[in-house]
């Protein structure tokens, strides 16, 4: 398993490098550079040239990329073209709110979806199962921003039960601002993960090894939770990994609607400003997270259901 993990890590490193290079090339391909974006509605060519040389954008792209990669090896992500602040500061500023959201969402997501999935599976075909199926399929089809806008209008503005945005708030000191964003963030993953848990559980309960365990006289409780559940959760872990990526990706829509200045907001601003060092820094963070999360998911899957991991 250690060799498997190491091999995956090495591949991951190559993947990160590939992502970063691709991002660099893509941003180069966008029309305009940081100087043009900064000049905005005052695009005096003389001024753009001055900004360009003040930012060092008059150096060849390859040279700038090389210098940036050199810095990356030393753990230096460079400075923002636009504000001159270190990119690391941008990342730590944005990481806080995004992490708070992501961790809370995951902490709530796992028990909630396992519980719903197991309950539905144990009552397969019954009223509870049918209601849960209807609700989860329905909820899953609502896009985040539509749900967010409706929730804000009803609970934030009309009833005034909860703050409609998190503008200017300290997320942890005022947890009430997190309620609506978390509901929006959880709505879809709870549906998809609990559906997977339900399907896995139904399959596992009908499997040979569970039937065998029952024949051995093991208590029904133990059969369900010690024998069936781990097999049922394995596919859900993969889905959970994807969900984690998505959460750490900043959930741009949720951040925009609720005014949470996380990584998603920083990414949008940095791309609009063609602030390449910041975009690149974010790409590194997202790529590393994706690689690590998937690695961890595969390792967990390997532990839970060794046969399925061989294929991966």
């Amino acid at each position: 398993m250690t060799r498997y993990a190491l091999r995956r890590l090495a591949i991951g490193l190559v993947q990160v490098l590939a992502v970063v290079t691709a991002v660099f090339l893509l941003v180069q391909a966008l029309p305009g550079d940081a100087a043009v974006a900064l000049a905005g509605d005052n695009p005096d060519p003389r001024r753009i040239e001055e900004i360009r040389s003040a930012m060092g954008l008059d150096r060849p792209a390859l040279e700038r990329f090389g210098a940036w990669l050199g810095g990356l090896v030393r753990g230096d992500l460079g400075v923002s073209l636009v504000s001159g602040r270190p990119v690391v500061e941008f990342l730590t500023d944005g990481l806080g709110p995004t992490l708070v959201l992501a961790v809370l969402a995951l902490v709530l997501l796992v028990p909630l979806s396992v519980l719903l999935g197991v309950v539905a599976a144990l009552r397969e075909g019954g009223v509870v199962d049918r209601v849960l199926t209807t609700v989860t399929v329905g909820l899953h089809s609502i896009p985040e921003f539509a749900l967010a806008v409706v929730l804000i209008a009803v609970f934030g503005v009309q009833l005034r039960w909860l703050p409609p945005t998190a503008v200017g708030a300290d997320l942890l000191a005022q947890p009430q601002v997190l309620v609506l964003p978390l509901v929006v963030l959880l709505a879809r993953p709870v549906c998809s993960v609990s559906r997977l848990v339900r399907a896995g559980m139904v399959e596992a309960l009908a499997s040979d090894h569970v039937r065998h365990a029952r024949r051995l006289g093991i208590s029904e409780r133990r059969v369900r939770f010690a024998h069936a559940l781990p097999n049922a959760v394995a596919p859900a872990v993969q889905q959970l990994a994807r969900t984690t990526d998505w959460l750490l990706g900043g959930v741009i829509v949720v951040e925009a609607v609720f005014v949470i200045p996380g990584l998603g907001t920083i990414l949008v601003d940095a791309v609009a400003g063609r602030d390449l060092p910041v975009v690149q820094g974010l790409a590194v963070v997202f790529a590393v997270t994706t690689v690590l999360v998937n690695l961890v998911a595969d390792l967990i899957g390997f532990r839970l259901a060794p046969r399925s991991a061989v294929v991966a």
Partner: protein
Amino acid sequence: MPTRRHFLGLLSLAALSGCAAPTAQQAAAPKNGGRLRAAFAGGGAKEVLDPHLANLFVEAARSKALFDKLADLGADVSAQPRLAEKWEPDATLTKWRITLRDTKFHNGQPVRAEDVLASYARILDPNRAFRAKSSLSLIDLAASRAVDARTVEFALKRPFIEFPNALAAFGAYIVPAGAEDFAHPVGSGPFSFVSFEPGKSVLLKKNPDYWEGAPHLDELEFVIANEESARANALLGGQVQYAHDLTPTTARSHTDGRIAIHRSPNSAVQAFAMKLDRPPFDNRDLREAMFLLADRQQLVESVLAGSGQVANDLFGKGYQYYADDIPQRTRDLDKAKFLIRKAGAEGLTVKLDTSTAAAGMVEAATVFADQVKGSGLTIEVVTGNKDSYWSDTLKNGSLSSFRSGAMPIETHIAQRLLTDSGTNVTKWARPEFDELYRKAVSTVDPAERAGVYREMQRSLHAEGGYLMWGFADWIVGAAPNVGGISTAPANTLDWARFDKVWLG
């Protein structure tokens, strides 16, 4: 992004229009105290507090709260003395003696002539690219000097009666000599610095010693919300008391007294720019046909949702020197058809470049393309990249969407309509027009000068490249108990001026 933004706006509107109306408490007499939270769109974590780098509305508003300029623009967009108590040119209009107000920076140091010269030297630094640089570039800094602590004598490279406009230029703030680190900015403005989290919040407190009198508010906090719907929701939810830049649709759906809507007319001009140096608009008849094809009232009604007024192909309605005696153009399809035939442009298809770089531009382009139908011309709307739009349209294409905020008419001409102007999008290049401009800025007599400006505007109206169809109101929302919000055009002195605002 644009589609999502648009969709969010529509949805929130639909969801909110059924709000109940609580009793509105009107802001009465000025009252002291309290913290006002103001929500603006921002630039995210790349924002800075260096006032010379100010580029966004939020940066301009914060700079205004923390710093002073020598002059600023009044309600008629003419320069008014601020940190400069008075100014006097000599007879040649090339030497200007400026007397500073007796006032102090937030650290207790007096504002001296030396600080003014150092601030301008910083802006004019050849190795940097501050926005106010072009406006101040006519100052001969080496020949300028501090006469005494409160008197500056500026030497100019050429006679310029409109020098106060340069002193009022966007970003021409006075900082203490030697200031380079703006992590804890020190200014002379009505508020002083407390704390800053880039992309999130800036907290300021009142400067009790401000030369124009202490602000009413104890504290002022700028918060960032990029989505218009989020600003409106935060205001409705009581999280902020001031929301900058709302859309006409939001304004129209909140007439129930839960929030107060403040409009600043003549804030932003909306236009189409035709390039004169290339076909097809190098033909004067075709330009006139375009002027006659626009149904301005319909554009104002549909694009600006009625929050604005029609324009007459001239910049600066209501501003000093605006030629309001030129008759308003109206739609005349028959004459336009005739002119299109005369120009030999029948059956021609013209690309109209637009983007979501400014609100309403794409909508206006679409509506105008519709209005042109049946005239012999066809307009094809092309939506470009919003981040590089202004730079793209300066060089490419022949017809594009255009908008501009308020600035003195002289500045508009200097930046956009002279042969060597940096942002001459219409490529209007006429030696006789340049000559008129030089005459205007060296004419001392105000009435005579107004006459020259009128002559310039007449020729722009007759054959220029800007089809200016409307002036948009600038819309801000506030809690009903917020008093003292001015309706001066955006970008002028009284816009986003929080030292005059109070919480009732």
